[in-house]
């Protein structure tokens, strides 16, 4: 093992003061994605059609809306962590890196907010089927 104090090693933090949490959450959200996306693909395949009415009626059930809300959180969290590493590996110029990371955060926050609000609106009956 590397240098550092015993306490530092116990905390698992290197000089960046971060890292294990990023790695761990990537794995936790991966497991969440695996379960929720299998559920999602099977659920869509079981719908007889994928038109507007079918999707709205499907999402009115709490047993569809709640897993889909959790899926949005898990998937967007996971892809934010993944694209962050992608940017850090390939964008070497400091200004461009910060710009890309800001753009990534904006994309994730806006897209996830749209998804969550849309699911809730349909689930609470805000969209006539």
């Amino acid at each position, binding site marked *: 093992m590397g240098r550092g104090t015993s306490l530092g090693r116990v905390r698992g933090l290197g000089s960046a003061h971060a890292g294990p949490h990023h790695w761990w959450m990537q*794995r936790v959200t*991966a*497991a969440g*994605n*695996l379960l929720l*996306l299998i559920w999602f*693909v099977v659920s869509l*395949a079981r719908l*007889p*059609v*994928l*038109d*507007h*009415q079918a*999707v*709205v009626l499907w*999402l009115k059930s709490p047993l569809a809306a709640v897993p889909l809300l959790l899926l949005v959180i898990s*998937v*967007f969290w996971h*892809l934010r962590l*993944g*694209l962050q590493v*992608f940017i850090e590996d390939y964008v*070497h*110029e*400091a200004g461009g890196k910060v710009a890309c990371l800001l753009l990534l955060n904006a*994309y994730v926050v806006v*897209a996830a907010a*749209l*998804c969550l*609000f*849309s*699911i809730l*609106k*349909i689930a609470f009956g*805000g*969209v006539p089927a």
Partner: protein
Amino acid sequence: MAHNPARPLSPHLSIWKWGPHMLVSILHRATGTALAIGGGLIFTWWLTAAAISPAAYAIFYHWIVDADPSSAHEGAQALVGLLARLVGVALSWSFFQHMASGVRHLMLDTGAGYELKVNRLGAILTIVFSIVATLVFWAVILGKGN
């Protein structure tokens, strides 16, 4: 970050013989990036359109679900439909490949599967899975339309 282009580089990608493990490793990153951007945008479009109106949903449905290149569209529209279908196939394959190689990564994280033959077999299996799953997925989707 200042870097000196005259510095010697260690042997790089070009001199290695490609193997399934290398291919699956870079595919995991490539498919993940494609899904994060393409898949994320299409998924957001789907939910937002569904929450806006049936008309907004119909636009999504027309371009993504019902992007049938064989239908009687005129030139440019048929081309866009074909491209949309290609994107759909590529993203669905990316999804299954990323899922399979992701599960492989979770196993590798436990310290298992680093023996040369096992590692190679695992890499090949992720590709076999993603191709078979993509074929089954589209058979179900297209079967639904008929």
